[in-house]
């Protein structure tokens, strides 16, 4: 059970500060997902933990031991890269054995560990192949296998599924979830762009924004109690509607937020009157973009079977207990009593 702690960690490249005072405390065996917009510093944070980048300031502590100056390989960490980073000239077996050889394990031990990992990931059949003779999904599994054999305390994934096609991505996601169950002692840190991956895999999600930690919490926490307008907008798909002006002001806030799935639509009456401009039917859901008189463009989710014509006049009513209010700095505002 390896806990990971980051205390006031900062990272600068030259004069550019990429991470600012990051404080995180991860429990052993936890599955943590880093999400955030592109360029916010997710990979950098992961690479700091791995030891591939220097920590400019602050402390990294694993299992109570300060790790800033410890060699990457001595941190008990394995990493799965986005591009897999398999050694192209080595067979699958050699790829998996390389790290173990460096650790001076006996050949028998190496064979045993590789066999075990290979079986777990169902790659035993291609042990003698070179990476270029494998499909994308197989390569990904070899990369994971290589990481497993080292029996790390902490497992790092940097967008491991982003090179796979949609179907394979779902399968592999499920496999990673299963892997986490099997390796219950191993702390996993996982970087992704994909909301679904984040929500389904994570015990807790860390939302990063421009080098700052915006919020840490369970997926449902982030969804229902976002700590900032940024998190509210980032978590949940499609995005939460943000409405400013009179409506927000009447509630004593700068911004009024409501998710598309928390708005009731009626053809007869409701709080906001508007015209349907565009509908997107996804089968399971239908989304209607409604141009309202008072609240601007608002996106509403309807049941998949519901049909609504573009140009129709409709009325929208936000569900009162799903309203989020933010001040002009994006901080949440205590909810005012219904106006």
């Amino acid at each position, binding site marked *: 059970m390896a806990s990971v702690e980051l205390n006031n960690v*900062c990272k*600068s490249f030259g*004069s550019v*500060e990429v991470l600012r005072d990051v404080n995180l405390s991860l429990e052993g065996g936890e599955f943590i997902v880093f999400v955030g917009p592109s360029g916010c510093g997710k990979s950098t944070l992961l690479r700091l933990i791995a030891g591939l980048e220097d*920590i*400019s*300031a602050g402390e990294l502590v694993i299992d109570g031991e300060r790790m*800033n100056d410890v060699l990457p390989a001595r941190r008990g960490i394995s990493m799965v890269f986005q591009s897999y980073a398999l050694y192209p000239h080595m067979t699958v077996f050699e790829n998996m054995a390389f790290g173990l050889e460096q650790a001076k394990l006996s050949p028998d031990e190496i064979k045993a560990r590789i066999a075990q990992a290979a079986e777990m990931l169902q790659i035993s059949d291609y042990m003698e192949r070179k990476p270029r003779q494998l499909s994308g999904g197989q390569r990904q599994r070899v990369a994971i296998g290589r990481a497993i054999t080292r029996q790390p305390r902490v497992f790092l994934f940097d967008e491991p599924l982003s090179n796979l096609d949609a179907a394979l991505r779902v399968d592999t996601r499920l496999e990673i979830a299963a892997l986490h169950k099997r390796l219950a002692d191993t702390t996993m840190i996982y970087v992704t762009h994909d909301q679904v991956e984040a929500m389904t895999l994570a015990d807790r999600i860390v939302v990063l924004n421009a080098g700052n930690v915006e919020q840490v919490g369970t997926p449902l926490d982030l969804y229902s109690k976002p700590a900032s307008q940024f998190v509210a907008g980032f978590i949940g798909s499609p995005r939460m509607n943000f409405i400013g002006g009179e409506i927000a002001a009447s509630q004593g806030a700068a911004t009024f937020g409501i998710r598309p799935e928390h708005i009731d639509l009626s053809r007869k009456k409701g709080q906001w009157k508007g015209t349907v401009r565009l509908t997107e039917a996804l089968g399971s859901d239908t989304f209607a973009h409604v141009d309202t008189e008072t609240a601007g463009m608002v996106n509403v989710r309807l049941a998949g079977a519901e049909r609504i014509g573009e140009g129709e006049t409709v009325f929208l009513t936000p569900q009162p207990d799903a309203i989020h209010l933010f001040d002009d700095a994006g901080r949440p505002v205590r909810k005012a009593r219904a106006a």
Partner: protein
Amino acid sequence: MMGAASDIAATETAAARVAKASRLSRQRIRSAWLFLAPMLIVLAAVALYPLYRTIWFSFTDASLDLLGEARFIGWRNYLEYVDYGNGDGEWFGLLADPRWWRSVWNTVWFALVSVSLETLFGLVIALVLHKKFPGRVWVQAAVLIPWAIPTIVSARMWAWMLHDQFGIVNDMLQRLGLIDAPVAWTASPETAMIAVIMVDVWKTTPFMALLILAGLQMVPKDMYEAARLDGVPPFRLFRKVTLPLIMPALLVAIVFRALDALRVFDIVYVMTPNTDATRTMSVYARENLFDFDRFAYGSAASTLLFFIIALITIGFIYATRMNLEGDER
């Protein structure tokens, strides 16, 4: 600047914190120097130290057999005014030697003409090789052959072909009715330089063609297709689209070749030994170093040649702001 400075101060002297934290990368940097050391030591021993000694010798009276006893004599190898005492006097030294200036001129002329011709022919060959046609690979292989032939061998091969009595070139030209009597290509002062340039152009055009071809292949194809759809005539297309795009590659190739041409030695030494018409700076320097036993004087010539080439190189690097760091990740 001021803003940045106070920012850093505000965030608790970031510099101090950085210095403290980067033990791992310091280790890595140390290993970098360790990896570089053997190469740097060899290069220093084989380039820097000898260069320094050459420059030193140029300020001494060293002679071939008495290198150890060389004494410092200042600028006398370069320029010296000897006063004959009767109000008369004479300038001596490299800078007052008309043969030196002749060889400087020869070298520059050689470089100018041969590089221009190589660029022109290289461009033509590159444009041909850039087209797809059956047997292209074989043509490219054929083009490479002159490049692979040792300079000395090409010099002698051509010397034979240009032979005044039995040479095939004279024979061809006579058959074609271009000349009436055989020409002594390498022996006569008027044609010696032409002969040397011809061989150099023949031998190095492939190199030029390859570099230009590489530049051409980096030009995106759709650029041509778009221009062709717009009905741009081929020559205009070349001048307005292709040429500007391959200019960087072309410039690099020209400078590489020019620097190479300025130090030319082999061809001249083998094809046209001992003639004022073709003597280049390198030939002049070596002559003095080893044939005329004027080691210090030859060193002075070498030194001057070095600085001329260095100046050109530095000028080029500044002019093009070559990106040497490469792509930072």
